[in-house]
């Protein structure tokens, strides 16, 4: 009967998960200031708006089954964020990607979705490294090259990071696989305001680094702290970081696309 709930019985017996889909998305421009929690809420709402048949956990407070892997830090843009969505019925991945993208704020952009077989290798097991791009406006290319050379010449370089559990040491050098410096003007995402806001300062050095996943994770800020420690590099304006890719590291320092085998 409507209006009564039996004790000990879930209010909403949730339909089971029968299919999964994996999604790659970007967070761009000003949306990079959204935290992981902010994005998680945005996706929970977007799946409802998009009519995605997402499955839910059981119990009195059912949660949509969205599983996340290694979110980029607040303030860091990304072209390679991943999540997995549990479904109560199969949906064509491309349709889901389009509907989800339309339901998300501009700047959180769904790039690709692939079906994932139940029991397939987990997303987390398909990722053990990241490629980051750090744009340092106002920093001369030669200055950055020298700082990076010094950092790569060390065996180990530990910086401290404030975490919820106090200050923790992270070995930046141990996590760094490759680091390349470029100096060409970088093509930033145009502002969502419709106003162009790319930095105007002529010198602008760009560092592309492949970083192994470790615990605690080495973040772009840690790389910058390491560059400051070895070469006293102090950018005049806050650098901008973007995660370009995640994947499994091969012998030559390349990252294997987590969707490589799933793509039809």
């Amino acid at each position: 009967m409507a209006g009564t709930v039996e004790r000990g019985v879930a209010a909403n017996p949730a339909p089971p998960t029968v299919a999964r889909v994996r999604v790659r998305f970007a967070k761009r421009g000003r949306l990079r200031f959204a935290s992981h929690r902010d994005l998680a809420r945005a996706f929970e709402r977007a799946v409802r708006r998009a009519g995605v048949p997402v499955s839910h956990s059981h119990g009195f407070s059912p949660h949509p089954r969205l599983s996340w892997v290694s979110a980029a830090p607040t303030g860091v843009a990304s072209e390679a964020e991943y999540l997995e969505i549990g479904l109560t019925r199969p949906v064509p991945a491309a349709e889901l990607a389009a509907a989800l993208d339309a339901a998300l704020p501009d700047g959180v952009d769904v790039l690709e979705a692939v079906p994932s077989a139940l029991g397939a290798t987990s997303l987390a097991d398909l990722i053990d490294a990241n490629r980051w791009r750090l744009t340092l406006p106002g920093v001369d290319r030669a200055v950055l090259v020298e700082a990076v050379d010094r950092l790569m010449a060390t065996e180990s370089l530990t910086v401290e990071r404030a975490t919820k559990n106090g200050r923790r040491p992270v070995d930046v050098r141990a996590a760094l696989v490759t680091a390349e410096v470029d100096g060409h003007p970088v093509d930033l995402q145009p502002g969502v305001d419709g106003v162009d806001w790319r930095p105007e300062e002529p010198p602008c050095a760009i560092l592309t680094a492949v970083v192994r996943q470790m615990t605690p994770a080495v973040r772009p800020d840690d790389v910058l702290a390491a560059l400051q420690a070895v070469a006293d590099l102090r950018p005049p304006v806050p650098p901008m970081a973007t995660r370009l890719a995640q994947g499994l590291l091969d012998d030559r320092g390349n990252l294997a696309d987590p969707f490589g085998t799933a793509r039809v």
Partner: protein
Amino acid sequence: MSVQSVFPALESLLPRVAKPVQYIGGELNSTVKDWDAVNVHWALMYPDAYEVGLPNQGVMILYELLNEQPDVLAERAYAVWPDLEALMREHRVPHFTVDSHRPLGAFDVIGVSFATELGYTNLLTALDLAGIPLLAAERTDEHPIVLAGGHAAFNPEPIADFVDAAVLGDGEQAVLDITAVLRRGTQREVGRSELLKRLAETEGVYVPSLYDVRYGDGGGIESVTPNDPRAPKRVTKRTTVDLDEWPYPKQPLVPLAETVHERMSVEIFRGCTRGCRFCQAGMITRPVRERSLQGIGEMVERGLQASGFTEVGLLSLSSADHSEIAEITKGLADRYEGTNTTLSLPSTRVDAFNIDLANEISRNGRRSGLTFAPEGGSERIRRVINKMVSEEDLIRTVSAAFAQGWRQVKLYFMCGLPTETDEDVLEIAGMAHRVIKAGREASGRNDVRCTISIGGFVPKPHTPFQWAAQADPDTIDGRLRKLRAAINSDRRLGRNIGMRYHDGQPSLIEGLLSRGDRRVGRVIERVWREGGRFDGWSEHFSYQRWTEAAAAELPPQGVDIDWFTTRERTREEVLPWAHLDSGLDPDWLWDDWQDALDSREQDDCRWTPCFDCGVCPATGTDIQIGPTGATLIPLTPVPAAGG
């Protein structure tokens, strides 16, 4: 004249502040328009943190309504926290709107919504960061018109020096009328002084600079008179009739940042005639105007589609009083069964509440806690404040709730009410003890909880208590200490009772700002200059800063903080807001105040004959209530079995 975004400058500051996401805009359903393609540019500011301001229904309604006008744009602004304020000053970044990051100073008009007086210092921060002179008198034709709205605008006298105008009452039609005035010419085109006179001729708009206040020998006001023939003697509030014609928000803003309310809110009716004598909202928003069952159903469906929210809030001053609340809740619970959508009814009265309603509300979600507001601990004080709920009703309701599976009850009270004694407050302890006993009996469990939440009473303008003496903080703190001891006097019961309260100091300052006159403006400015920000937040509020500023600024003007707060007013006194008309007949208000002192109750005019509060004739309105007998049709017809 095109207006540039300040985002390039702001962007490099954001990595250095807490929760930068609150400053970036880009919310789902937000609107960005071409500056040069429209005639009138509105900035709508909520002078508190984004997390509080974003869900504000008033701002959301006006934002959508104004942006629907093809030749108008409206952008939102919120107060910036001190960490960003310091960086903005250092790097000369002006205060901005979150939608397009345009500087506030570029807009034609800045509408500021004051839900509480404690936002006044944040108004000054925003003006100063925007490069707009704090004093309205010093602004030129190049500066925006600063317009106050919201409940606090019913006595804008303390901020009369800082605002150009205030809007009394409902904003929907008022902002469109003001827009029409601006279309005929902004201050840049017709001059600031002419524009202000045109605004003064607009219904519901009060322009303080067009009125002279004269003070008498005893410190009181002798008269408030227009100094220009185009300003009316009294300004009457605006009243929106037929809420179904105003189904806003249609496309609720969905923030990325975490905010205090994350739900699809629908105002199911406006106004309240329960007549609680302390309640300014109930007095200034009369009469009751219900939204229809179908109107509510459409707004909920459209809003959920547009937002993806999982919670629906049915808002009003006393939601269970809607004449068709049972049909609404059952209809919505049926419609959204199995979709993980929950309903909430934020303001409910013990006597209007019943367990059927509670079951519908919780059918698709948790049943964690129930909240009631008896407001007064003793039967006597509840007669004084006209909050007529009996303790038997309360115990019966909570017993039923505990029997149905609820485990927690939250009770709201006030302390420092007119005529209140220690005994009135101590009776709260007895009530809480009986709630625990009843709960244990009904549920058969020991772990039921009762939380008591107590706030200091602040007398407000346009209420029967506008003449009352406010209790001083020491009296309130003393009573709350005794109450805590009384609750814990029975440890077996007391350990299941939580008590949450604020000390009496912020209430006294709120009282100064609520019933203050133009002389209080200097106190506000001094507090702000000495660092006062975010006064509604206990970690930022400084009682000492306020009392010291009051002690420095008020005596030279012949008054002091006690004169504004703990002093009882006489019937003859000219109240600072006497020329601002909320529709309530002053004689009725005075009689109701006398009834309060005699502990006499006043019934609700929805169910008993009109008691002549004056609002309907004064504002040309009438109560609009059901029932209509309509039902909410299911959206997805369930196919017949085997059919």
